[in-house]
């Protein structure tokens, strides 16, 4: 069984993740999110909780970084995918450092430029998808489709 971690903050990021994650064959799929109530409402049971944070607030970011490291360390995912935002980036970061392949799907909310978390994910070598065709560039940021 391939261990797959699918992660997103609560709200729109989570709704997008729900549209993109299906029952991947022969995978041990686990979720990580900031809003356990919303995850339960989506019928997801195997959910790890992350504190919310954003990359411009160092204390909250540090807290989230530590908690997400704990989750990723214990679960040891072989694949990490995220639809954002900063908590998802940390899961991608630790996943990448522990050898997972990582995919960042930038939120459709980012129609002008890739989000800060997305640019960070690119920087550490995650694959990156945008949901706006005009934001795709050569091979680094690809467009395959969108949820809307």
């Amino acid at each position, binding site marked *: 069984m391939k261990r797959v971690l699918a992660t997103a903050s609560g709200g*729109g990021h989570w709704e997008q993740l729900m549209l993109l994650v*299906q029952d991947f064959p022969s995978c041990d799929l686990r979720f990580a999110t900031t809003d356990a109530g919303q995850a339960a409402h989506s019928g997801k049971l195997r959910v790890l909780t992350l504190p919310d944070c954003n990359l411009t607030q160092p204390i909250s970011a540090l807290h989230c970084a530590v908690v997400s490291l704990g989750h990723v360390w214990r679960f040891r995912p072989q694949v990490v995918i995220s639809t954002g935002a900063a908590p998802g980036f940390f899961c991608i970061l630790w996943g990448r450092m522990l050898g997972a392949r990582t995919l960042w799907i930038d939120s459709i909310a980012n129609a002008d430029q890739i989000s800060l978390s997305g640019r960070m994910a690119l920087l550490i070598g995650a694959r990156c998808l945008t949901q706006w065709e005009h934001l795709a560039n050569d091979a680094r940021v690809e467009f395959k489709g969108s949820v809307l």
Partner: protein
Amino acid sequence: MILVTVGMQLGFERLIRAVDRIQPDCGVDFVAQTGPTSYVPTNLVSKAQFGPAEFEELASRAALIVSHAGIGTVLLAKRLRKPIVLFPRKAGLGEHRNDHQLSTAAQLAGHRGIFVAMAETELRDAISLGLACGPIGHEISPTLGRLQSAVASFVASGTLR
């Protein structure tokens, strides 16, 4: 009934004040999820936050959803086939960290069942258009399947097909 929401994270008093002013002209009940705010609306049934199940039940009963330009609410409206009015937050007024909601709203304007009010003065007309629109069809994004396949392919083999 019209359901007003500012999402789950940040208050958005400008929208709540605006719909509170407009409600008497509309002849429809409004229920609002206001987020954290000290403003007490007089013409709306309001609560800082509804639980996910209660919120979904309200949304499924609503004729129209009026919302900040958050993707969660846009996807919910689409799933429930409800028309939606988007009123974007502005960073210059301290309503969000940046102006991505302005570009989201601008890009989504013109999608079936999505109406955009960039300012308070445009809200009343957008609400009238939204109410007149009625339930929308169940159109899934034409490119969603391709995106799902790309994600599944990445999980299976590491390639984005």
